[in-house]
């Protein structure tokens, strides 16, 4: 089973040179730590920044410079600031190549639920619905099962949906899976020490296994 950092590390291998990327809150934010130095990518923050830098040193904290998670951040050389309409113009217009975000559930046709649990206080969808409706490539980072042990990879989402047929790939603590255009989770890689049988048992949506499933390799 992968740790959160290992999930982030595995997702970082999906990043390609020259990409503009939006990272959601939680595990996706950790991905930034594992992007190889030889790749030039730009991180977008939907509150109005391209080129998110590292967290500031204490003496450089600026309340007028935060990311979409409201954390204080810094800029890089070549960063650019803009307003919220421009930010979502970028997202909606397909200029952001890759969105990495968390999920409560993913269905076998790529639907995602991550904003609302009936009966609980709803905090809002923020920018998630815009992101999943627009990005060319959407990768979900999440635990394979909920805390109560239920699979989060389902035939259909049971929670209110954030977006339909949008998730392309899932990296969980157990596996890397692609969403088939015709439906189903194609098992691409296993976490070290995790068997295909365990993944089968913990995936309630249709699981597609094509030949030998390799273990993930970490550098």
């Amino acid at each position, binding site marked *: 089973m992968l740790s959160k950092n290992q999930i982030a590390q595995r997702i970082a291998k999906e990043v390609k040179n020259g990409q503009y990327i939006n990272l959601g809150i939680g595990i996706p934010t950790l991905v930034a730590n594992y992007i190889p130095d030889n790749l030039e990518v730009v991180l977008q923050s939907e509150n109005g920044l391209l080129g998110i830098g590292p967290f500031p040193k204490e003496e450089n904290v600026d309340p007028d410079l935060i990311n979409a998670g409201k954390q*204080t951040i810094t800029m890089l050389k070549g960063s650019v600031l803009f307003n919220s*309409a421009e930010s979502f113009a970028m997202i909606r217009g397909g200029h952001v190549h890759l969105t990495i975000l968390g999920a409560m559930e993913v269905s076998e046709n790529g639907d995602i639920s991550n904003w609302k649990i009936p009966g609980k206080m709803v905090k809002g969808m923020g920018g998630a619905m*815009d992101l999943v409706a627009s990005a060319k490539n959407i990768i979900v980072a999440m635990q394979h099962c909920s805390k109560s042990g239920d699979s989060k990879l389902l035939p259909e989402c049971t929670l209110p949906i954030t977006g339909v047929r949008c998730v392309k790939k899932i990296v969980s603590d157990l596996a890397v899976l692609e969403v088939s255009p015709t439906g189903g989770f194609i098992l691409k890689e296993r976490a070290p020490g995790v068997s295909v049988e365990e993944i089968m048992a913990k995936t309630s949506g249709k699981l597609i296994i094509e030949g030998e499933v390799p273990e993930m390799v970490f550098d």
Partner: protein
Amino acid sequence: MINKTVKDALEAVADIPTGAFLMMGGFGLSGIPENCISALLQRDIKDLTIVSNNAGVDDFGIGLLLKKRMVKKMISSYVGENAEFERQLLQGELEVELIPQGTLAERVRAGGAGIPAFFTPAGVGTEVAEGKEIREFDGKHYLMETALKADFSIIKAWKGDTAGNLIFKGTARNFNPIMAAAGKICIAEVEELVEVGGLDPNQIHTPGIYVQRIFQGKDYEKRIEQRTVSN
């Protein structure tokens, strides 16, 4: 140039009535109109509808207006961590309309730009789409969303001139420029108010045509929600 200056926040918000439809700039607690919020707290008005991406925290920003029970309805994308907000909502004392952040931004932009409606992919297949027209363009489905306009938009900028031209700083820009244009009356508070000619015409983010009132605010706290530092 037309002079838009008013004396202070109290004068700027003096005629906002009970039941007004407001927009307030800011993302989280960054770039919020602190002075105008303080001034509104001194007004005996209520039943406000407020369009704002977030709803502040318990003891700062819009949270203060909520605590004083001045707000009837929030229109936001994410209402965050706010115990009083949650209490009022669960008690049915407060209405909330949640809108995807990009749709919110574009609806506000459309309101200022004279575009009554537009199509967006955000929310297709979700409960956000309920009751909305869905249309296909180039094989993809989109929702029709309508423009948002406000009686008053209340925003915060970094620098401004007496003609209402504004420059924002960092990510405190966020919703402020688009809300400026979407308010019938836009009230802008700025950290530094300069004479006309004091700003480079090529670097102005919000043209003064959108701003009806401007004043230099004071005592900005600029509270930080998530102070994250590196070692």
